């Protein structure tokens, strides 16, 4: 049995086909090889920013620090943040302390805000440390790339 020799276009077609086939199989076998070594990185780091505020009004000095931040979770969603503040506040006679606004913001990889919350507190004069809960809208924890706190002086004295 004697067949005609393969023409050039058919030969080209066969070569391209084999290259595609080889590439697909190669990609798949690479995936299998990777899987045997270790899981792949999805999110491998998260950044927290713990803020500190110092200021004064005349002779009265203020210092407020965020010393810890914790995220409260239900399922895979963050719903609140618990912050621990440490502060030293001086206030004039007749005033019990000063108002500060504490905020927590969650950001994704593109620095887009996912959720944020804040609370305005009367931080009584003297040196103290306390924890506070700030409500956030539910956010999937795996989207959170950054957790940032901020402290803003409201500019008002407070009485408790």
């Amino acid at each position, binding site marked *: 049995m004697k067949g005609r020799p393969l023409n050039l276009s058919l030969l080209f077609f066969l070569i391209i086909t084999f290259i595609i086939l080889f590439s697909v199989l190669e990609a*798949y076998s690479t995936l299998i090889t990777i899987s*045997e070594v270790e899981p792949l990185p999805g999110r491998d780091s998260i950044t927290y*920013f713990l803020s500190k505020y110092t200021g004064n009004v005349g002779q009265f000095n203020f210092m407020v620090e965020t010393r810890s931040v914790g995220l409260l979770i239900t399922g895979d969603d963050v719903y609140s943040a618990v912050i621990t503040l440490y502060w030293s506040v001086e206030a004039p006679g007749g005033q019990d302390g000063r108002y500060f606004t504490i905020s927590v913001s969650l950001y994704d990889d593109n620095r887009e805000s996912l959720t944020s919350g804040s609370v305005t507190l009367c931080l009584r004069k003297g040196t103290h440390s306390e924890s506070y809960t700030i409500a956030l809208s539910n956010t999937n924890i795996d989207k959170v790339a950054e957790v940032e706190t901020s402290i803003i002086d409201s500019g008002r004295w407070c009485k408790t």
Partner: protein
Amino acid sequence: MMKKTLIIFIFIILITTTLAYSTAIYVGDLGQLGASEKTPVAKYNLRVYSVSITVENNQITSITITVASSIPGTYNIYARVTNGTCTATATWTNVDLTTTPSSLSSSLTPQCSYTAAGATVEVGGEPA
């Protein structure tokens, strides 16, 4: 006749392989692929639930973090504390992480000052 048979045969192989491959990806990202169920390809997401620093005489002396991973396994974890130009790093090696948070503590060297406007804490890790 032989040429046509060959072309059809190659087409069938190509289409079948392509369909199988694209279906595997479509079914559920890379997590569904793998050599067997014992060694699935999976993406781990490190989850950092809390960061807490200890401050003594305005110096950041130690750090405690609560961390978990969406894929259980053994990981090397680090926490890098930066304030201005000062950077201190704590590391934990061969930490068994699950989806349940684990608490890790370490002292920090050098001890950075805790000054306004604050300190950045980067917590990261990779499979050990």
